[in-house]
């Protein structure tokens, strides 16, 4: 998947507008990001990547970059 495509998908899942997501984005810094957002990411990972997280992985998932690593960074292209 193209990185830009993924960032769009993520933005839709998080139901956020007016925010530019990049690999460097830290989730906690997104205005309005809360537990519902985390649930959306868990659902997205399972649905689109068939990736399920352990509790430890979930706790480490603080940034877009880290999320992409957990999903498998090799799956993304520029």
């Amino acid at each position, binding site marked *: 998947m193209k990185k830009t495509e993924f960032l769009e998908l993520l933005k839709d899942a998080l139901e956020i507008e007016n925010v530019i997501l990049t690999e460097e984005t830290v989730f906690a810094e997104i205005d309005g990001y*809360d*537990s*519902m957002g*985390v*649930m959306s990411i*868990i*659902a997205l990972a*399972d*649905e689109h990547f068939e990736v*399920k*997280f352990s*509790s430890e992985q*979930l706790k480490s998932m603080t940034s877009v970059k880290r999320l992409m690593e957990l999903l498998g960074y090799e799956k993304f292209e520029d």
Partner: protein
Amino acid sequence: MALLQIDNCVIKGISACVPANIVDNLSFSTSISNADKEKIIEKTGIKERRFVNESQSSTDLAYCAAENLINSLKIDRNSIDILLFVSQTPDYQIPTSSAILQNRLRLPNSTAAFDINQGCSGYVYGLSTAFSYASQKGINRVLLLVAETLSKTLSPNDRNTSLLFGDGASATLIEKSETENPAWFSLNTDGAGENAIKINSGGFRNPVNESSFAFETDSEGNSTKKTNLRMDGIEVFNFTVREVPSDIKKLLGFAEKTIDSVDWMVFHQSNKYMIDFFLKRLKFPSEKSPVSIQKFGNTSGVSIPLTIVSELKNKIQPKNAKTVLCGYGSGLSWASCLLDLSNCYICELSEL
């Protein structure tokens, strides 16, 4: 591995009872802001719930459901061999609530009665126990009661719990059947998640003391006491995504049935977002998965039979009665079963 098939048993009837007191989530008194309330209501689908009053308990609700079922089916009380009571909000630490109910329901002293401490997976666990007994020589009828008053465990100022849980009870009569009528169960546990849904104090590891009643505030501003039910919603959702759809596939594989042959799928009513997710992942049509969460919230182990009573009365016919039930929650614990509800009488919902 707890995958099992139990033959020669049938569910004869199901009833449910909820408190008459309706709690509307939008007007619920809490420190949660109105904007947040609306967001939670939208995602979870929970508009209102039922709360008991101070004097009502789990056995009161269970008694109401049981009387309704016994009277509707017109069965002889002396024919009930076993009484099972599933709850995590029993009347007392000691004695077992099932004994109180045996007496109140005027069941004979030859009735075996015991409690099962299980949460949201409790109905399926309870059914597996009831079916196991009913399939044995000598046992003919098992009355399975599930009741919860989780409202009594909640802090009003905790966005993880205070708008989600409600009270209720159900009664199910399981009977030996002449026909094979197989039922399949998958029962599972992951105690590594013991902290995901927990009441920390009030048991015997952490008996109640003065500090149990001090409010503690977390980073999101949720305020709870150690005696309140606390839930890590994200941890729970993550666990269900990991385990629930695959458990249903495992169950159907074990039963050698395809998902297309399933007529109804009744999930524990945890939240609408979660249920929609499971249905999407299983590619199962949502019109065949009834939802009652908007009216009753999350009533733990009660939610599956409550949903059957509230949503499936007059809908289950002998030709479309193959039903998957699936519960998941504290423990962590999850369980699913596939059974035929052809001969099941569904009572009108009663209120107390």
